[in-house]
């Protein structure tokens, strides 16, 4: 008999707790459920309410991580700070803080913070250091020294990183000025230099035919037609010089676009050399 009473008592207590769907414990349960379902915005609402009643480092971390996963990186970075001290997960929080700053795209802020060294996580110094060097491949800042740069990455990836470094430092651009100068010497040559061979040949033919027509008409004393074709010839000659410079600019933009894409997909594929987050 006493055993039964205890059991039903327990049931009552448990259910009375459960019955209040909005008690802080219920919020925690439901929040965790949403968090693992990747329903991060809703989970953050539940965690916010829960944290008003009880302090819990893991939940603080998850609360910040909700913003990180949603892509609200600056809010995430601010919230990760709440578990920077006297916490068992302080290194994880600090790493997550640097990750947030890195993915916010404000690489200057990220680099300044990592140079300050106040919040650096002892356990994850290598990871933050790698992110630091990776950030130089992603914006237009002056690249640091090769040695430090490449040695920050694992041995198996050093070759790829070296290639990226060289491509970033010495991009395979085509000079718009050279293209324009070449086209001014021989119409279309600038486009051939950029790689648009058939466009170059067309420019050469168009300006050539117009020049021929101008000369031919002058020879036959058709001065109006002669001047007309001269004008047209000059117009297309100038257009071809301009177009060659434009083609080189487009080529360069393409090189930059492809490089940025390659870097992004390379690092994304390797999760930026970061450990999995199990919290």
């Amino acid at each position, binding site marked *: 008999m006493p055993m039964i009473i205890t059991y039903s008592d327990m*049931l*009552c207590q448990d259910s009375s707790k*459960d*019955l209040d*769907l909005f008690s802080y414990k*219920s919020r925690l*349960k*439901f929040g965790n459920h949403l968090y693992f379902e990747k329903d991060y915005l809703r989970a953050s*609402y539940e965690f916010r309410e829960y944290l008003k009643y009880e302090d819990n480092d893991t939940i603080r971390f998850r609360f910040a991580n909700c913003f990180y996963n949603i892509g609200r990186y600056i809010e995430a970075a601010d919230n990760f700070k709440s578990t920077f001290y006297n916490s068992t997960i302080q290194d994880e929080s600090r790493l997550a803080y640097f990750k947030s700053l890195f993915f916010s795209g404000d690489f200057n802020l990220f680099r300044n913070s990592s140079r300050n060294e106040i919040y650096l996580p002892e356990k994850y110094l290598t990871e933050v250091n790698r992110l630091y060097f990776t950030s130089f491949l992603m914006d237009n800042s002056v690249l640091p020294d090769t040695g430090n740069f490449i040695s920050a990455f694992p041995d198996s990836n050093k070759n790829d990183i070296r290639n990226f470094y060289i491509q970033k430092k010495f991009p395979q651009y085509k000079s718009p000025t050279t293209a324009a100068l070449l086209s001014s010497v021989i119409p279309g040559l600038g486009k051939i230099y950029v790689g648009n061979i058939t466009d170059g040949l067309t420019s050469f033919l168009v300006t050539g035919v117009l020049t021929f027509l101008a000369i031919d008409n002058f020879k036959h004393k058709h001065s109006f037609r002669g001047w007309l074709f001269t004008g047209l010839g000059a117009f297309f000659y100038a257009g071809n010089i301009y177009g060659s410079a434009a083609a080189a600019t487009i080529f360069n933009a393409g090189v930059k676009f492809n490089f940025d894409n390659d870097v992004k997909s390379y690092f994304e594929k390797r999760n930026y050399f970061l450990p999995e987050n199990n919290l």
Partner: protein
Amino acid sequence: MMKKFLCKLIFYFLVSLVSVQAQNEFSSQFDYANTLFKTGNYFDAITEYKRLIFFDSTKTYYYRPYFQIGICYKAGAKFDEAIKYFSISELNSSDDLERFDSKIEIVRCNILRGTTSRAHQLLNEMELKYTGNNSKDSINYWRGWAYMFEDDWTSAAASFAKINPNHELKLICDRVEKEKVSVTFATVISYILPGAGQIYTGNFLSGLLSLGWNVLSAYLTINAFNADRIFDGIAILTLIWQRFYRGNIQNAEEFAKSKNIDIANSALINLQKQFRGAKP
């Protein structure tokens, strides 16, 4: 023996008391979610339906909240999610009526999403399964809507006629079909008389200008050939006449198609705004 029985009785009584209390809590949670839903607060309503589903271990509130989540997503035009939740509600349904409702909602989402072929596929499957008169009417009704969204007003009229030969929507479909112009006719008359197709579709100025260009370039071409200026004749023929003749036919076809789409769209917008019956 008696003591044991009494103990059991008290235990069951307490358990049922708890479960009744829980039921009340769940029903008030369901009401709360419904209030949010009714005030158009769909995002928050989904949160509350999800909360109910999460805590309702008795599974009493399973079909309805899932169904409601589907409706919320549909209201936010998030049809992929809506369809997922209607499918889950269908799996949690307890009778044929609930299953039918979920399926119809999936069909409606497909119509709105523009994936009408999927809507037709689902309706065909449903037709084999549900043979009652009401179900048949409902299936034909939504089939009609799917056809309207496909711009196939003849088939839509036929579907609505199966429900009732004088169905309001059938009459609307007939009217739209009658209003539409024939794309083939517009193109063919433009081959015969340039500009005629444009005039037929109501673009008088464009038609007259087309006719003007064609007459002028034909005159210049024939004139050049007559005067033995063969090169000029060929140049005018290929560079001017052919260009405007082809342009006139292209225009006639495009104008006719565009006019038909305008007619269909004005009918659809009218239905969206004025029609009182069930809409996707």
